[in-house]
């Protein structure tokens, strides 16, 4: 499969993805695709399976049935080289999950050095550039515990970018932040999108989804209720559930 994939095909292709935790089915047949350079937002009420989906795409959780392909590689294949897959996929978490015993710079440098085996001077130069890019120049030697939530989250973004992923997954990355620091993180993601990075976001930031996303999926109780370009979805939603949700959050 990997051999037949070409860049004009979707980077992520989910077909009828189902996922159950015991008797509870949280994903009931999700199909979506992400093309190179696209920014996709998944919105929906809590417990609709958004985060589970994004974790399945990164093979952090196995799917029960269906198919997820990243650049033509089947994620549910038992022979899958998970580590190779994850090198293509960057992931940013709600709780940042920085390594608390390492400085901001070391957090960014660790994976390229130890996982990719790159040379330290090159990695360091690149890590410094990435931290500057997320507006954290001067914070290189600061430990995560001394940074604000927004700053930590931007370090986490730089840390993922250091692996040069083909796609970035964002799992409610602003949900744990103070309102005033949400913006700085969203600005960073927007810049990333403008640079052409493929992004898949699970988010509650409707204005961000509206302004930045190329395509928005509305999920509820494990199914995609409706999807489309943001201008149609946000102004002319056809499904009653979408309308109700949007009227509550907008």
């Amino acid at each position, binding site marked *: 499969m990997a051999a037949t994939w070409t860049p004009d095909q979707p980077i992520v292709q989910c077909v009828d993805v189902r996922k159950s935790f015991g008797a509870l089915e949280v994903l009931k047949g999700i199909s979506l695709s992400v093309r190179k350079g696209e920014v996709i937002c998944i919105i929906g009420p809590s417990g609709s399976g958004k985060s589970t989906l994004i974790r399945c795409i990164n093979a952090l959780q196995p799917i029960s049935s269906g198919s997820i392909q990243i650049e033509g590689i089947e994620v549910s294949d038992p022979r899958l080289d998970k580590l190779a897959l994850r090198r293509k996929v960057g992931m940013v978490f709600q709780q940042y999950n920085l390594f608390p015993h390492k400085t901001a710079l070391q957090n960014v440098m660790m994976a390229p050095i*130890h996982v990719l085996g790159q040379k330290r001077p090159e990695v360091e130069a690149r890590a410094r550039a990435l931290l500057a890019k997320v507006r954290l120049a001067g914070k290189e030697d600061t430990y995560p515990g001394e940074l604000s939530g927004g700053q930590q989250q931007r370090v986490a973004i730089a840390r993922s970018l250091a692996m040069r992923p083909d796609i970035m997954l964002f799992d409610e990355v602003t949900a744990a932040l103070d309102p005033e620091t949400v913006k700085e993180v969203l600005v960073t993601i927007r810049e990333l999108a403008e640079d052409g990075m493929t992004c898949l976001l699970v988010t509650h930031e409707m204005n961000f989804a509206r302004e930045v996303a190329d395509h928005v999926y509305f999920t509820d109780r494990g199914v995609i209720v409706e999807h489309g370009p943001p201008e149609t979805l946000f102004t002319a939603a056809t499904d009653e559930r979408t309308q109700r949700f949007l009227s509550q959050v907008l």
Partner: protein
Amino acid sequence: MKTAGSGNRLAVLLPYRPAPARMSVRIGPLPAAILCFCAIMAASTAWAQAGPTMLSPLQVIVKWSPLLLRGFVFNIAISLLAMLLGTVAGLGLGLALLSESRLLAAVSWLITQFFRNAPWLVLLFFVMFLVPFQVTLFKTTIPLPDWIKATVGFALPVMANVAEVVRGAVRSIPSTQWEAAESLSFTRRQTMWLIMLPQCIKRMLPPWMNIYALVAMSTVLASIVGVSEMLTLTAQVHAAEGGRPELFAPLYGFALLCFFLYCYPINLWTARLERRFRVR
């Protein structure tokens, strides 16, 4: 992360954090000093009734102290070596406990439980009497003196206890750290050595030092199997001085004092580290 002001602090149930297992009994410095003083005083009264040609208990201690202290240094050496061996082995066993392989985890669990729940003296006897006095490897004969065997005997319970400390510390790191490492393509082994264990060192240090204080005090058990450590030497000195009953308390009191002066600061330091690391 929202930082609530001190004014409107929400009533949050903090996660249950069990107090670290405390295995040693702590004696304050004052009671200990009083204890030693009483011992020496009791002996002095007996000596006052004895003949004039005999040495006073204090003179006996001073006379034999080089030998006794050499014995004490031997105790310390045994304890340090046992701790080193036990820590290295315990780290391996602890990692095996955390292994993804069910078989390896089960076997190491069994080993850990066996050595944690066996009396130290019984383990010591087993090692002393089951391990030969020399082994021949590749035509070279390596002698195994008693004190080496005793060291191994002490290292076994240390290993099991350190394994539990390692397992507990790694388990106490939030699982989100594993996820973050996984998403960055770190292998399990890299995650363990680069991300988990470095974070664990702080929390492992106090219980590890606690184990050490216990080992240091337990090394006197080696006297039962004939290693010439401090307690053995004390008994021999007592016999050499004619086994006078009034020397009993001062001589053993001296041994007591040596161990107390060595272990008490370690326990104090451990308690201080525990306090400091609790506030995170």
